[in-house]
C-alpha cells in the first residue's frame, strides 16, 4: 500500500514523508506525520473548514486533498502565519477583539482570513462574510470574527 516517500513543501520547509498511501489526505499527513496539529479534523468531508490550509496561495480543504497529489505545491498551515513568532495583524485583531472562543475553528479561519487580506485593501463586512462562508464556527455567531478581519484590513501596514 505504501508509496515511496513523498516530498511536501510546507511553510517554506521541504519535508520528506514516508509511509503515505495513495488515499492518505494532506490533513492526516500534517497532523500525524509532521505534528502540525493546527489544522483540525472537524468533519473530514470538507464542510466545516477547520482543516483549511493555503495551497499555492488559495485556501483549500486539507481533508479533501490527497497528500501524494500535493507534492509540487506550496502549502501554508496556520503554523506558518506568525512570522518569527510575531502575530500577523489579523491574528492580533482576533486576540484583542475577543473573536476567539473555543478556538477549534480558528486555524482554518486564520487561513481564509489571510487569503482575503492578500488583496491589500480595506474589506467590507460583506466581502468578509462571503470569504468566510466555508468556515463554520459554532461559538461566536461570527460577528466578532468578521469585525476583526475588517479591522485588520483597515489598519495593517
Amino acid at each position: 500500500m505504501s508509496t515511496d516517500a513523498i516530498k511536501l513543501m510546507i511553510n517554506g520547509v521541504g519535508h520528506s514523508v514516508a509511509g503515505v498511501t495513495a488515499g492518505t489526505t494532506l490533513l492526516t499527513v500534517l497532523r500525524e506525520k509532521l505534528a502540525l496539529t493546527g489544522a483540525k479534523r472537524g468533519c473530514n468531508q470538507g464542510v466545516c473548514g477547520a482543516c483549511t490550509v493555503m495551497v499555492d496561495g488559495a485556501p483549500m480543504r486539507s481533508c479533501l486533498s490527497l497528500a501524494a497529489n500535493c507534492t509540487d505545491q506550496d502549502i501554508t498551515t496556520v503554523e506558518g502565519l506568525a512570522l518569527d513568532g510575531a502575530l500577523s495583524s489579523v491574528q492580533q485583531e482576533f486576540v484583542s477583539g475577543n473573536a476567539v472562543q473555543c478556538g477549534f475553528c480558528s486555524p482554518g479561519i486564520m487561513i481564509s482570513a489571510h487569503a482575503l487580506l492578500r488583496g491589500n485593501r480595506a474589506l467590507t463586512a460583506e466581502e468578509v462574510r462571503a470569504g468566510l462562508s466555508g468556515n463554520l464556527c459554532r461559538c461566536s455567531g461570527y460577528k466578532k470574527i468578521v469585525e476583526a478581519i475588517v479591522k485588520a484590513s483597515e489598519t495593517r501596514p
Partner: protein
Amino acid sequence: MSSLDTTETGVGTSLPRADARDKVTGRAQYIADMVRPGMLYAAIHGSTVAHARIKGYDCNEALAVPGVACVLTGKDFPDGRMGAFIKDEHAIAKDKVRYLGEPVAVVAAEDESTARRAAALVRMEYEDLPVVATPEEAMADGAAVVHEGLTDYFKVFPVICGGNIASETSIEEGDVESAWDDCDIIVEGEFETPAQAHLSIEPVGALAEIDAEGRVTLWSANQSVFRVQANVCESLQLPMSKLRSLTPKVGAGFGNKMEPHVQPLVVQLALKTGRPVKLILNRVEDFEIVRARHPFKIRCKTGARKDGTLVARELEAILDCGAYGDDSPGVLGYSLLMSRGPYRIPNCRCHGKLVYTNRMRFGAFRGFGNPQVTFATEQQLDEIAELLGIDSFDLREKNIMQPGDRWFGGGEVASNGLAECLGKAKAASDWRAAGTRAPTTSGTRRALGVAACAHISGLLGTGAIVRLLEDGSVVLNTGAVDIGQGSDTVLTQMCASTLKVPADRVAIASPDTDGSPYNWGTTASRVTYTTGRSVVAASEVVAGQIKQQASEIFECAVEDLELRDGGRVGIVGVPDRELTYFEISARAHWAAGGPIVGSDTWVFDQPSVDPKRAVATGLPFPQIGVYSFGCLVVAVEIDETTGKTEVTDVWSAMDVGKAINPGSVEGQIEGGFVQGMGFALTEEMVFDGPRLVNPSMLDYKVPTTLDSPLEIESIIVEAAEPDGPFGAKGVGEVGLVPVPAAIANAVAAATRCRQRRLPIIPERVLNGMLEQSVEN
C-alpha cells in the same frame, strides 16, 4: 502583555483571553492533538440494531487483524451503572442494546485505521426486540420496555417512573381549574421542536494511560473533570482516588461534553492493555452516539382578561428521553419550572413526561429545555396580544415579574433587570416605528418579533484555591473547565481585581481532579456566578492573610490596612507606608505565618420551591439558582417566492448582573443567538424510526457567515445579584433561550400565520402564506 493597572485588566474590562494567542497560531492542544508514548488508538463497533438482546460476540476476525492489541465487549466491563439522575447506563452495552450505534465492542490497535477496520469485523448475534422509536410508541399499551430494571435502578431523587416513563414531573401554583372562568380569552395550541445537534466543531474524544500502580490518568474533551471522574469510576467500579481526570483545550461544549461519552471505554482499554489508549469519534459517531437536544411536544394553554392581565397557564410536555436517562430528568424538571416564564401568572400548572425510546440518548443542551417551552409560551403571549389588539411589548410590560416577585414554585429572585431589558430592546429596535420600515429587498415581507425570558445560573458544589507565590504572583485553581466561553479569563479578572494585581500576574491552573477543588461543571450558566463567588471568597482570604502579615510588620491593626493597585499593601492614609506582595510572601514562606493560600467551597442551597406556595412532584432540583433575564427583538425578511426566512437585525438585551468581561458577554449573546437561530430555521436531526437520517455536516445544516446577521446589538443590563461576585450572574444560555420564539413571532407578524413547529423552514412558511392568501 505588559503589566497593566488593575483598572485596565480587572473586572469590567474586555481583557483579551490568555489562550487566544495559542488558538490563533495553532499551538493550542485539543484532545485529538495529544500523543503519548506507546499509545494505541481505539475504535468502536456500534450496534446495527436499535433494540435487541445480545446473544453472542465473535471477535476472532477482529483480533486477527495485524496491529490489533485488544478487543473488549460488554462481557469485559464491570457491571457498574452511571447516570446523572437515574443510574441506568453501563459504560458499554451489556446484555441488551437500546439504540443504533450504541457501543457494543471496542478495539485498540497500533493506528486508527487498523482499529476502525478491525472494529468493523466484530460479529454480533442479536435477538431482535420490538422497537419503540417515539414517545407515542413507547407509551402505547403493550409497548416493548426499554429498561426492564428501571424500578430497581439507583436514583438521586425520588423519581416518579414506570414502564417507559423515565420521569414524571408536575408543578402547580394557584387554582388553574377555576381560573379559566376568570379569563376573557384563552389561547391553546400544540408546539413541536425537533432534536438539535450540539455540533461542537471538535468531535469528542479521550485518552487514558495507567501507571505501574494501576492508577489512571485520563484526558478528555469535557465540561467537568469531576463528572468524568465520577462517571468513569461508577461505571467501571473503580475507587475514585484511582483516577485522575484532566483536560486539554476543549473545542466547545454546549452540554454534549458534560456527562460521559467515550471516557469509560478508553480507561477500560488502558487498564486491559497497560498502554495509553486514545479514541476520537468521527463526525458520524459524534452525531449518533453522544447526545442531542430533546425533541419536545408541548400543549400549552394561556388565559387573560380583556385588559391583557394574564390569569392562568397550563402546559403539558412530552420529552423523548432516548435510550438512557443522562441529564433528561433535569431537563424535564427545569423546562417545567420555566413554563410560566418571567411573568406574573397567578394560576399555573404544568406537567411533563420523559419517555424512554430506542433512539440515541438526549441530554443537556444550552438552554436545558427552556428554549422549547419558551417557543410555546412566548408565542401564546403574542397570540393574546393580537387577539386583544394590544402591542406585544405593552402586554409583556404589563405582566412581567417585578423586583421582589418570586419565581414559579416560590423560589426567591434577588435581582431582576427584566423591565430594563424590555425597555432597552424596545428603544434600540425602534419597535414603535417598525411597521413603517420597508424591507431591504423587494419581494420580501419584513416584520419584527419579540420574546422575553429568564434563565438560571447556579446549582451544586464549587470551590477555589488562591495561592500567593514566593515572588508575589498568584495561581488560581478552581477546577472549572473553560470550554471556550472564556471562564478562565473572567475568573482571573475577579481574582486580580480582588487582590488588586494586574491580570497577567494571575495564572489559572488547568483543571485536575488531583489538585483542583471540586467543581460540578461548566454547565447551567454557572461558572461566573458560582465559581466566581468562590474565587472572590478565596481571594479575600488571601487578602486577609496579606494584611495580617503587613499588620505584624507595621505593628498596626489589620483594619488600618488596604490593598493597593499593582499588588501592594499599605496603611490607609499613609502613601509611603506600603509593602509589595513579594515582601509579604517572602516573609510568609521563609519566616513567619506560613505560605499564603486561600480557599473556599460552597454549594448552592436556596430552595427552588416553597411548599407554602406551590406543589411540586418529581422535581429533581431542590435548589436551583439565581436568575438572569432577557428580552430579544429580531427583524426578519421573508421571501414571498419561496417562504425562506432571513434574520436581518437583532437587538438582544440581557441582564447579566455585572459584565465581568463585556467582550466575552457579547460573545455569549452573539454566539447564543446564532445557535438559537439555527435551531429556529435550519437545524433538524431527522429520524426514520430509530435511525438518524442525517448524521453528517453535509446534511445537517448550521448557519454560515452568510446566513447570520452581522447586525446583532448586544445590550448589557446589569441588575446586580446581591450575593453574586461583583454582582454577576450567568450569561451562557439566556441569550439563546428566546431566539426561536422571537423569530416565530416575527414570522407570524410578517405572514399572519403562526409557526408552531421548528424548524421554520421555507416550506412551512410558504404553505402558511398561501393558505392566508386563499382565506383572504
